[in-house]
């Protein structure tokens, strides 16, 4: 417990309710970084504060709201498309290919496992340009029924890691994703836990260009700057 804990502990409820002015909220957040007691209380009381929006009487939003929102979204999607033009002669062909979605990626991973390829590095390309789904090497001494796959989009940005059969990371711990560049492990900026059946997933922000491997370790809440455990799974990219 930090020395200034008593000065701040009364702020927990006000912070969760959004009742602290911006500056006070920032100061309290800095205190949270160094005060485990306040962090624990915050996580406990979050159950109540996060339930408050669910007590609101439901009101139907006007259809014009969705129309206006989607008009902007489609316009911006078209602009993004124009910024990354495909070769015109390829476009009709590409648009007929099935789109790669995480569901398809997950299904592909399950199929790979079903034929007994739980270990080793697998590569399956399932349409959608250069998108790839890579099967992970899982440490079965830690996760006997574990399996994982990494979906890498064609532009190598915003990859999605999907896991199954992983044990819970333990109290006060999370799974942290790492990327290996030049032989050095760096935080990928993605933490995740697992639900029923040990399943979970984590989006990896940014690009995987230059990344040799993606790995996952169990770390303390909030993650670590360097891996402190052996990887529970690894995906080789090169």
């Amino acid at each position: 417990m930090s020395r200034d804990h008593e000065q701040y502990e009364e702020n927990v409820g006000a912070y969760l309710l959004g009742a602290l002015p911006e500056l006070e909220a920032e100061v309290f957040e800095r205190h949270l970084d160094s005060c485990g007691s306040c962090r624990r209380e915050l996580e406990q009381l979050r159950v109540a504060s996060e339930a408050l929006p669910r007590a609101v009487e439901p009101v139907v939003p006007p259809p014009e709201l969705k129309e206006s929102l989607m008009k902007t979204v489609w316009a911006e999607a078209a602009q993004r498309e124009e910024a990354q033009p495909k070769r015109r002669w390829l476009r009709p062909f590409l648009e007929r290919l099935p789109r790669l979605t995480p569901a398809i990626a997950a299904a592909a991973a399950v199929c790979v496992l079903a034929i007994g390829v739980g270990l080793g590095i697998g590569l399956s390309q399932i349409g959608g340009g250069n998108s790839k789904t890579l099967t992970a090497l899982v440490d079965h001494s830690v996760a006997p029924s574990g399996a994982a796959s990494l979906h890498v989009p064609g532009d190598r940005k915003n990859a999605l890691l999907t896991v199954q059969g992983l044990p819970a990371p333990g109290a006060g711990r999370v799974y942290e994703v790492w990327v290996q560049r030049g032989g050095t492990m760096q935080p990928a900026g993605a933490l995740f836990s697992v639900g029923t059946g040990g399943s979970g997933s984590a989006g990896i922000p940014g690009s995987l260009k230059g990344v040799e491997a993606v790995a996952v370790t169990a770390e303390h809440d909030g993650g670590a700057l360097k891996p402190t455990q052996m990887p529970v799974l690894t995906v080789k990219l090169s």
Partner: protein
Amino acid sequence: MKQTKDLTRLADEELMHVAQGGDPHAFELLYDRHGGAAFSLAYRMVGTRAVAEDIVQEAFLSIWRSKVRYERERASVRTWVLGIVHHRTIDALRRNLVHERRRASAEGIEERLGARELTDVEAVRREEAREVRAALSTLPGEQSRVIELAYYGGFTHTQIAEMLDMPVGTVKGRMRLGLEKMRREMTGATA
């Protein structure tokens, strides 16, 4: 439309990943799943449809433009979306110095969901709403009042202290005790 059918099978977390990767279909489904709750919260807080619409539109556009990234380990998609809407609504309320708003009275009542319109999902959410309201109703009046003024009214602890003519420390203490009591009611915890 096959593509949309495939997306409808995705859990919120996967759908959010696809949407923030730039897929408008996935984003539209996310809005369909959570836009109603987002609008209901904003409308409850500001009391006018036009302001609530602006807030929800800006909140969802910030998600689409990936100005805020979803982190699944922190909260469910619904909780995360509603948190963004709550923050934006508080910002909107605090920018308005007069703090003027019309509470949902005659306006909009006819648009509240009626029993005949309830889908199964909505029925579950109504049940959840009843449970949360029940937990709120167990609080002493002075605790529920400060919680409602803060969360739904967007008032700061100092504004609430002035309104209720009590020390700021008392307001903060009641917020904390009220949330703790709600938590115990909702989780069945004994301490």
